[in-house]
Structures are given as C-alpha cells and as structure tokens.
C-alpha cells in the first residue's frame, strides 16, 4: 500500500494526501500547473525542495519522512516511472534501455516475455529514434517494469502519442493491470482517461487534493463548485435549499419568482441555506415542448452547436433570463426533438441528479 501525505511551499505549493492499494490505479487529475506532476516527482524522489514535509511510504518501508529526516534518493525508492515524453536513453537499443534498468547482472533473455506482452517483440534492437511514439512509450513502460517496482508512477504517459496509439496503450495498460499487484499512480489532465482507467481519482488544484473517490462518486457528487468545475461539470448554479419532509427538499433557483425544484434531502444542508448545485448531464431528459411532469422546466433553445455525432445545446429556463444550462446531446436526438435555436423544449431533471453543496466551499474568484 502506497501512502502519501506531502506538504510543500517552494518551488510548488503542495498539500496532498492519498493512498493507493496494491493493484489499484489512482489518477491524480487537475489542470496544467496544479501540482500533480510535482506530487508524482516527490513520490519518486525527484522533487528538489528544502521545504518538503510529510511522509511517503510503501507498506512498512518509508521513502520520505521529514520528521525522521529520511529522504531516500530516487535510486533507492524502487519506483517505476514513466515520463510524459518517454525519456528513453537515445543511444541504447530498446532492449538495452530495459536491461540497464533491471539492476546488476540481468539476463537479456528474461525480457522476451515482457517485450512480447507489450507488443514489442522484434523491436529489441531498434534505437528510440527508430520507434513510433506508441512503441517508445511501451519501451518506457517495459523499462519501468524491468526493475520490478514497488510502485508504478505514470506521468501523463498517453499525452504525447497519437489517438490510435493511445487507444492501444489504454488496452495494454488495462491488460497489464490484471497481472500486476503494484500500486499505480497516473497523472492526467484528461478526465475521460481518468474515468476510463482509474479505480479512484484524486482531484488536485493549486497543489491541494480537493476530493478523492471513485470516478463515479467524484463526477456525480463533487465536494464543491471548484471540483465540479475541474471535473468538467458545466451546469453548476446557485440557489437556496429548503427542507420539506424527511428525505425530501426544495431548491429555489433564481430570485423571487424563479423556479422551484424537487431535490433529495441528505440531511447535510441546513434549511434555508444558500447553496451551489450541479446536475449530472446524463440524468437530464429533454422533452418536446408541452410535456409537463415532475421537475420540468420550460426552456428556450439559445444555441445548437453540432460537433459531429454530438451537439452542444444551450438552454435558458423561461423564468430565469440570466441562467444557462448546457447539455451535450446526440445530434440525432436533437434533430428528433425538432427544436431549432429560438424554439422551446422541456427540461426534466431527476431529483436525485441534483447534487447540492454548501455555498461556503465556493472559492471567491473562479
């Protein structure tokens, strides 16, 4: 089990804690410059900082413990690290890249199975410059695994390869996970990648871990508006929450004369509190104008942007001139509804699709 709890001030502010069980893949997700790569480098012992505090441990073995003055160099940490731009040794063959990382007196023939498993058979003698981006990243993965690492650290490993190679690498990583019992930490800014590959995600912003959970949990129930923004939920609004009866509440959206929506009461928000709320896109239904049931709002279609098979549709609730709801829909569905820009539709929101967060968590300047 990898346990990380790190704080730092210079050169990069960090305040993050998370764990990663054997065989588990945890994704550190955040925008560029959020500190996720610095966190990964700190785990590997590559972050040079005099202000780093906290602890990094794998099982009973501590790699870094500021209280004990312990800071093992990268060589002694036994972490496999896959770099964003491969960082292969350009003067060595693919095989020699891997053999060099395998420690003293390795047997070159022991790597045949590894090369076979990663789709590199026959490429052993090629130099990095003679390999495609996807092949180079596989060699980098083989090099990281050759050392039989106690932790596998992946720093945006798919961002430098083209889309087809990326899909193949996703499959290979998924297959590899079946055979590895190593904690794996993946840094990515790609939410789709995190949802697809990770058992758990850690949302990082300005060096802080804001929320940890399964992708489904974090994407459906962001802890605050910033997390909602970071995980790409476009529809987040402000409102006022009222308790109605045990388990049921009412959300006032907009000022007096606005809209009232039925919501679930999880007994976490006090009656009358100003809140931020989000709706998960997949729990919204669009109905033809005229339908009326449950949490249904009449909305004007402001804009339709066709992006191939999907379309972005911006709606304005009838009573709320300043609010906008943006939905990603299939282009076919939008055509079926026959609602061009300027037309009207009904928006139905399931009460349990509304996730309400306390207003105090909203950062001042977002």
């Amino acid at each position: 089990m990898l346990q990380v709890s790190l704080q730092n001030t210079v050169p990069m502010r960090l305040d993050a804690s998370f764990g990663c069980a054997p065989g588990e893949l945890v994704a550190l997700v955040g925008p560029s410059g959020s500190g996720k790569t610095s966190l990964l480098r700190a785990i590997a012992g590559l972050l040079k900082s005099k202000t780093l505090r906290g602890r990094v441990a794998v099982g009973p073995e501590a790699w870094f413990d500021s209280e004990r003055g312990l800071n093992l160099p990268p060589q002694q940490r036994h972490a496999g690290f896959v770099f964003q731009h491969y960082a292969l040794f350009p003067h060595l063959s693919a095989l020699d890249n891997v053999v060099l990382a395998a420690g003293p007196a390795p047997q070159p023939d022991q790597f045949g199975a590894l090369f076979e498993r990663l789709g590199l058979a026959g490429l052993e003698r090629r130099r990095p410059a003679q390999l495609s981006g996807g092949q180079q990243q596989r060699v980098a993965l083989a090099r990281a695994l050759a050392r039989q690492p106690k932790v596998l650290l992946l720093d945006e490993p798919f961002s430098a390869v083209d889309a087809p190679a990326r899909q193949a690498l996703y499959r290979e990583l998924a297959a590899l996970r079946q055979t590895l019992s190593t904690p794996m930490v993946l840094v990515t800014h790609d939410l789709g990648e995190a949802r697809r590959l990770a058992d758990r995600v850690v949302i990082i912003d300005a060096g802080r871990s804001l929320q940890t959970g399964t992708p489904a949990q974090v994407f459906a129930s962001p802890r605050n508006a910033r997390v909602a923004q970071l995980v790409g939920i476009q529809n987040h609004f402000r409102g006022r929450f009222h308790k109605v009866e045990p388990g049921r509440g009412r959300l006032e959206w907009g000022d007096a004369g606005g809209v009232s929506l039925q919501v679930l009461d999880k007994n976490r928000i006090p009656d009358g509190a100003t809140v931020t709320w989000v709706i998960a896109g997949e729990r919204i239904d669009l109905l033809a104008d005229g339908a009326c049931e449950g949490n249904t709002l009449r909305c004007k279609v402001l804009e339709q942007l066709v992006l191939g098979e999907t379309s972005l549709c911006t709606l304005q609730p009838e009573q709320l001139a300043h609010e906008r709801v943006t939905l990603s829909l299939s282009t076919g569905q939008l055509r079926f509804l026959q609602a061009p820009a300027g037309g009207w539709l009904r928006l139905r929101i399931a009460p349990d699709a509304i996730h309400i967060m306390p207003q105090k968590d909203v950062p001042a300047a977002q």
Partner: protein
Amino acid sequence: MDWQAARVSLLLAVLTAVLLLPPGVAVARWLAFSSWRGKPLAEACLMLPLLLPPTVIGFYLLTALGQGSPLGAWLVRQLNLRLVFSFEGLLLASVLINLPFMAQPIQRAFAAIPNSVREAAWVSGLSNWRTFWRIELPLAWPGLLGGVALTAAHTLGEFGVVLMVGGSIPGVTRTLSIAIYDRVQAFDTAAAHVMALSLVAASIVAVAAVFAADRRQPLQDR
C-alpha cells in the same frame, strides 16, 4: 619547416589536451547541471583567458611562477622544478589558458541532455556515477571531441603566452608559432609560409572534426 618546433608544438598540443580533458569534463559537467547561485561568476572566470590579452596572462604567469616569486622559489627549492622558460612551465600555462576551449563545448553537450533522461536513469536505479558513464558521457562525446580538437588547435597557434612564459628555446619551448615569427623577422617568408599553412590546415582539420562529430549524432534527441 622547423621540425623541432613542430615536434614541440605537437607534444604541447597532445599533452595539453590529455591533461585538460578530465578537469575540463568535471568543470563542464558542474557548470551544465549546477544550480549554484554563484555559477555566473564561475562562468565569467572561466571565460577570462578568452578575453584577456595573451601577454597579460603571460605576464601574470611569469610573475607568479618566476624564481623571484614565493611560489617559483619554493618549487625550485623543494622540487627542483623551474616553470619559466621550460617545457613544464609552458605546459602549465597552456593548460590554464585552454580551459575555456576545452570546457565550453563539453558544457554545451552536457546541457543538451534532457533532464528527464538523467532522471530516468536515477529512477531506473543507476547511481550518479553509472549515470555519468552509461548515459551522460556517451551522449556528450561529440562535445568532448570538440573540446579536445579546439584545445589542440588553439595550443598549436598560441603565441603571446608561449613567448612570455617559455621564451624561444629551440627544442624546448620554441613552438611553430614562435618559429614563424622568427622566420618573418629573418625575412625567410618561404619557411614562414610553409609553417603558417600547416597551422591553418591543422586548424581546419580540428574544426571540421568538431562539425563532423556533431553531425554524426543522430541518436540524441535534439
């Protein structure tokens, strides 16, 4: 052609390059990878031999190493070593003034190695020493070749420091560049031409070797 002078020049060039290579690599690597705050000052000091007139350097070396100086007197007394108007003194002066010619190409070659490649070596378990031998040195070798070639070419052509520290003792300190000067003074321009052309050819070969080595570097990420 003054073959005696050619032999002294060649010996001086080879020994200077050989003696200067290890410290040149050490200084260059330190300058390439260090983030020490005083690094710009160290780089400026390294550049001094390129900027100061050779006669100024020669004068200070003469002053520092002559028998009238405490160091010069001590060397003669303790080690029976005379460093002015001797080949040993000429070699020491040559090593000192050629440090930037050796270090600069090597520094550039080390600095061109992506940091992530060195970090990849460390996380692969390679010690700093093994990283140097297995990764850094093979990637920086064109820089080493360039440093050796430039040092040798510059040593062959050096005049001012050689004249100040070594004088012009035939077979001991008289180099080709001094011999050319002597031939011109004696109006023997034919002999001066031969020696001057040989120095031009040596310089062209050295610089061409540097460029050729740089072109034959397809394996390193650029």
